[in-house]
């Protein structure tokens, strides 16, 4: 019996790693992989069936490494299990078509949502699950620990220390999980330098560095041109500020990116000021660096902003506002998606976002037929965390009863116009997500935010205070009362709606003291990208695609 215990090896992972590293000794110069050898090196380091974490982030893409991965000989390396925050580039899906990869656990698909849905239907990808970001990072430490990490950084020094700067995102989380269970960490950098501005990730966590031919791909995903904000969006923003932010004293928050929330950000210095709310609301933010927040920052509304990632064009502005943003000793920002998602889960009063479809119970989804977009961070921020214990005015304000054992709730707000462009109703009988689940063989329908987490819904018709509903039926009625001339909305009578208003479950603009015709674009603190630049004193440098001068 004693012999069996002696023969088991407890270092199989370590031994495997050592063997892999040895196999590439001839192709590498210490921890440096020469650019030309990248495919050959990956082919030796990666074993078939490995779990591979590839960045695949939201803003940042390890594009050099992903393109190299797509060139592997599928005979040598196949059946990989990919772990990715975001499927953003064509080669992220090419690797499945080529047989290099087989299984996928991810969070968000965005631009590749159409092809993704098609490939799943065709059986070319085996989806483990669609996650929310933080959930995926959590599993890196449980059952999805990567054998290989393919990540991107700005700079490395000779010792493999990394500088990831404003675009740090989830790189530290991925590397930590990989490095500390004997996985192999391979980093592409824009350049190798003698001295780093600061150390974001220590070299002892890093196995290999390759200086890529081009900087890693970076997209400006959180810039919204104020020119595109409509009067309806301004109306809804005014209602939100008055009927939710002011009423419940929302001090800390996250804005899901979109024109609706951009309108709120741009109304703080004007409409918000006229309500006397400066200093009382919107002080602490978990937020990507939205350029549309600049006027509020400059006007003194914002105490702090922690960011998930960076935003192209905002670097200089952020570096000049270290009182507000999280910046290192070198002066540049440090973002961190994992921590920011944690902040968005436990430490904010409110999450607000938009959606493409909502059913009568307030369940919402952006997944529509033929497109599998996934979730991103919304499910994490758009839910009420049962583990929260600390009270804030807003959280406590959600308490409706008066029993001794109580807890507050995070405000989860969905803001949406009743119809999308082309007269498509947002309120539907049943979410497309249900059918998509069948087609993609998913175990559950991919709902982004569940109705029972939603505390408020805002449409151009008014606000439904769902958290106040005493029954499922009452909740449905409140939603119908603000569903306008959609099929759902036509179901409810004036009388029913007035009763709901009386009970405080529904508020129309007039109930909030908001005049519809006051919703004008002149109320926006900045009406164009150019004006944002002026607000920033020229520090904000928008990427070319947002410039019109």
């Amino acid at each position, binding site marked *: 019996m004693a012999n069996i215990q002696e023969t088991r090896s407890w270092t199989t992972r370590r031994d495997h790693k050592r063997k892999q590293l040895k196999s590439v000794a001839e192709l590498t110069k210490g921890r440096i992989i020469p650019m030309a050898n990248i495919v050959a090196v990956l082919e030796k380091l990666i074993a078939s069936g490995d779990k591979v974490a590839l960045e695949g982030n939201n803003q940042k893409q390890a594009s050099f490494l992903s393109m190299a991965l797509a060139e592997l000989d599928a005979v040598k390396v196949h059946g990989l299990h990919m772990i990715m925050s975001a499927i953003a580039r064509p080669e992220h899906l090419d690797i499945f078509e080529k047989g290099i990869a087989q299984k996928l656990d991810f969070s968000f698909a965005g631009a590749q949502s159409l092809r993704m849905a098609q490939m799943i239907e065709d059986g070319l990808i085996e989806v483990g699950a669609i996650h929310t970001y933080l959930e995926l990072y959590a599993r890196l430490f449980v059952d999805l620990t990567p054998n290989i990490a393919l990540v991107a950084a700005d700079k490395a020094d000779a010792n493999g220390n990394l500088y990831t700067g404003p675009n740090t995102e989830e790189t530290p989380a991925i590397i930590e999980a990989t490095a500390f269970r004997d996985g192999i960490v391979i980093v592409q950098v824009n350049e190798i330098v003698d001295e780093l501005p600061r150390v974001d990730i220590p070299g002892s966590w890093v196995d290999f560095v390759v200086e890529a031919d081009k900087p890693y791909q970076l997209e400006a995903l959180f810039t919204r041109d104020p020119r595109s904000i*409509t*009067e*309806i969006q301004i*109306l809804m923003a005014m209602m939100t500020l008055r009927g939710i932010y002011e009423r419940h004293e929302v001090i800390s928050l996250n804005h899901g990116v979109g024109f609706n929330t951009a309108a709120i950000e741009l109304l703080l210095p004007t409409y918000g000021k006229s309500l006397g709310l400066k200093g009382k609301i919107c002080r602490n933010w978990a937020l990507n660096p939205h350029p549309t927040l600049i006027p509020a920052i400059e006007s003194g509304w914002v105490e702090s902003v922690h960011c998930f990632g960076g935003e192209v064009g905002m670097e200089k502005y952020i570096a000049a506002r270290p009182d507000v943003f999280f910046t290192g000793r070198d002066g540049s920002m440090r973002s961190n998606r994992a921590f920011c998602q944690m902040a968005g889960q436990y430490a904010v009063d409110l999450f607000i976002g938009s959606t493409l479809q909502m059913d009568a119970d307030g369940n919402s989804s952006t997944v529509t037929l033929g497109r599998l977009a996934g979730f991103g961070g919304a499910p994490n921020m758009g839910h009420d965390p049962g583990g929260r214990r600390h009270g804030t005015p807003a959280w406590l304000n959600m308490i409706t009863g008066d029993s001794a054992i109580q807890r507050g709730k995070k405000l989860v707000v969905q803001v949406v*116009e*009743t*119809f*999308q*462009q*082309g*007269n498509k109703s947002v309120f539907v009988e049943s979410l497309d997500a249900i059918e998509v689940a069948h087609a993609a063989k998913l175990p559950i329908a991919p709902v982004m935010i569940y109705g029972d987490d939603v505390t408020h819904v805002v*449409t*151009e*018709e008014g606000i439904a205070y769902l958290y106040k509903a005493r029954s499922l039926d009452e909740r449905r009625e409140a939603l119908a009362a603000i569903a*306008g*001339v959609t099929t759902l909305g*036509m179901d409810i009578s*004036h009388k029913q709606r007035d009763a709901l208003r009386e009970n405080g479950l529904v508020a129309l603009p007039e109930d909030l003291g908001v005049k*519809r*015709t006051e*919703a004008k674009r002149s109320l926006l603190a900045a009406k164009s990208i150019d004006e944002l630049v002026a607000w920033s004193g020229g520090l904000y440098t928008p990427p070319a695609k947002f410039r019109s001068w």
Partner: protein
Amino acid sequence: METLTFNYKGTKKLPQRAHVGVVGSGDLEVLLEPAEDVSEVVVRTRFDGYGPIWQEIMDRFFAVHDIKAKIEINDFGATPGMVSMRLLQAVEVSYDEQNEK
């Protein structure tokens, strides 16, 4: 393009005519004129087949604003929310003292 007509009985007389909006993408223009007797609404809309939605929008509008008006709408694909917004704006402009000639 579809042309739709709606009729209502109203009681309130409007002080003056009003024009709001622009026939641009996702927008509409509204010409509002006082009427003597009954209200007539004529809508020319870019997208066909949404008669019932327009009916509901107009029903709701006249239920709240019991006016006698001749209304002409040239719509280039505005959402119902936008349509209601412009109708309200037109009424407001009509009542605005400063606009009186």
